[in-house]
């Protein structure tokens, strides 16, 4: 009998702990907003500033890849209010009915975002109803001028045996295949198995030359002169050049990936209005500028672009390239389950090859 009493007691205590744990929301006087963003993708000062100005408490969480983010938002257990996925993942989220339409009336600062970026967003958000661009950029080759003395303008250099063991590749399926597919002259959104297979074969051929497959570490390794050539996101390129002036970034002539990361509001968001306030704050000219200077990823905020003090950065071809100068620029599409499986299957073959 006593056992039962204690058991009930224990259960109640566990339940109570759960309830207090779940119930202690609204730490700020105007509630809270739960933000889910890429790692190191914001100036933390702006979060404090937002809390001060609005009285809304920010709960901030970070993810490393779109693929890690997706199931967490889908399951709804974390109740994120604002998320910042990339283009093709936004498309997937729209197709699977995970996103809420944004009420643009609540986001007056959206006027700061350049029209061309909304135009570009139509590839994944055809009616511009679900997403507001936060950062954009390209993927290109970062090379060390002291180790490479020829001009580089092509993905071919990543297959050049001269640079064996001096090449860093991106350790993610779509980015790695983008390089191989573009080099072969195919679309990076192809679902033609023959093309994907051919690209996989060239990646297998390249593997002995590759020093390592890395994601965030490209930055530190290139700064530390660990490798001569690396595939990198344009936003990281500006940062690396600041740290190591020997580094140069190029967009290869065969074309590349032009990507956009945008703010979206999941359907299961608990604080939609606060989410819109947060997005509006992020679109404010001074906040966007502050973030750009901190993370160095190109901002689509044209008002902020005009106010960049450093002339070199303001006119930088890396940060704000003239897209009309390049051919075959593409943005990733969501390829559907079968398309994803196709790429993953071949990527595994690449990773497992000797």
């Amino acid at each position, binding site marked *: 009998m006593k056992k039962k009493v204690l058991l009930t007691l224990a259960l109640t205590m566990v339940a109570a702990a759960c309830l207090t744990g779940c119930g202690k929301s609204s730490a700020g006087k105007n509630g809270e907003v739960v933000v889910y963003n890429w790692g190191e993708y914001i100036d933390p000062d702006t979060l404090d500033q937002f809390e001060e100005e609005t009285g809304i408490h920010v709960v901030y969480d970070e993810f490393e*890849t779109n693929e890690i983010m997706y199931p967490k938002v889908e399951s709804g257990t974390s109740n994120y209010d604002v998320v910042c996925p990339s283009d093709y993942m936004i498309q997937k989220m729209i197709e699977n009915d995970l996103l809420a339409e944004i009420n643009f009336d609540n986001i007056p600062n959206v006027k700061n975002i350049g029209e061309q970026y909304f135009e570009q967003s139509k590839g994944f958000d055809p009616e511009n109803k679900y997403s507001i661009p936060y950062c954009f950029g390209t993927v290109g080759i970062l090379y060390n001028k002291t180790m490479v003395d020829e001009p580089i303008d092509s993905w071919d250099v990543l297959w050049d045996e001269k640079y064996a063991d001096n090449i860093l590749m991106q350790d993610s*399926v779509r980015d790695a295949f983008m390089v191989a597919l573009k080099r072969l002259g195919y679309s990076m959104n192809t679902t033609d198995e023959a093309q994907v297979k051919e690209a996989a074969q060239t990646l297998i051929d390249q593997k002995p030359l590759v020093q390592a497959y890395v994601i965030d570490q490209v930055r530190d390794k290139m700064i530390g002169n660990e490798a001569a050539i690396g595939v990198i996101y344009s936003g990281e390129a500006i940062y690396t050049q600041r740290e190591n002036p020997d580094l140069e970034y190029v967009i290869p002539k065969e074309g590349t990936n032009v990507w956009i990361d945008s703010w979206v509001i999941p359907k299961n968001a608990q604080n939609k209005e606060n989410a819109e306030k947060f997005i509006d704050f992020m679109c404010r000219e001074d906040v966007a500028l502050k973030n750009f200077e901190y993370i160095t990823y190109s901002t689509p905020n044209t008002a902020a672009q005009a106010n960049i003090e450093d002339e070199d950065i303001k006119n930088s071809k890396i940060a704000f390239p003239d897209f009309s100068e390049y051919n075959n620029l593409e943005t990733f599409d969501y390829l559907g389950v079968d398309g*994803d499986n196709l790429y993953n299957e071949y990527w595994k073959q690449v990773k497992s090859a000797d």
Partner: protein
Amino acid sequence: MKNKQKLLATPYFFWAVAFIIIPILMVFYYGFIDSAGHFTMQNILAIASPEHSKALFLSIRLSLVSTLICLLLAYPLAMILANKSVNQNQFIVMIFILPMWMNFLLRTLAWQTLLEKNGVINSVLRFLSLPTLDIINTNAAIILGMVYNFLPFMVLPIFNSLSRMDQDLINAARDLGANNVKTFCRIIFPLSLPGVISGITMVFVPALTTFVISSLLGGSKILLIGNVIEQEFTQASNWNLGSGLSMVLMLFIIISMIITAIFDKDGEGLM
């Protein structure tokens, strides 16, 4: 009275159900269904595909090698420790455990910085005009990482079983004319076997399942079975296949635990 003691375990019981039993059942659930929710064995049979079996065998090979190296390094060390006076050996054991206070990821990341082409070790070697050490992003670096991280798990159980050994047995063997080699082979080693076996399990199992060491020190160029499973979850979003492969891996862990249970009946090698 006895009933009360049992009740003290209630919190752990809930803990185990919530964080051990239910997750394992979920792995089984996902492992036996396909993406449409129908029962399938495909996720488990997938281990036979060339990429998966290659990754599994490579994992087994690297873990066996690093377990063997750990054993060769740990046994003499444990013997020295066991022969020291209590104060001295406590100090040395302490030194041994000290690095484990630091995060495992940080320690492995530190090895990456040490081993890199222009890393700390190579800079020193180059300064001394010695040939450089080029093992980063190879199997050798992964084995080094495994040995470094898991060595304490081998030393401590062996040290435990050696230090608990009845000194009279060794003295008796000497009295009866056994030399050092014979004493070691016939008395010391067989008596320390439970410690050795549990040390082997405690090194082999984490080495077999690791994915962090191989991606940090192998430059993600070397695919171990742990990496395959991790990628199914984080990149491919194929939880079913990831769970199926995890179950295959569990099988290997269960086998090694059975071996431990056979040799180490009293659980004395365990800490």
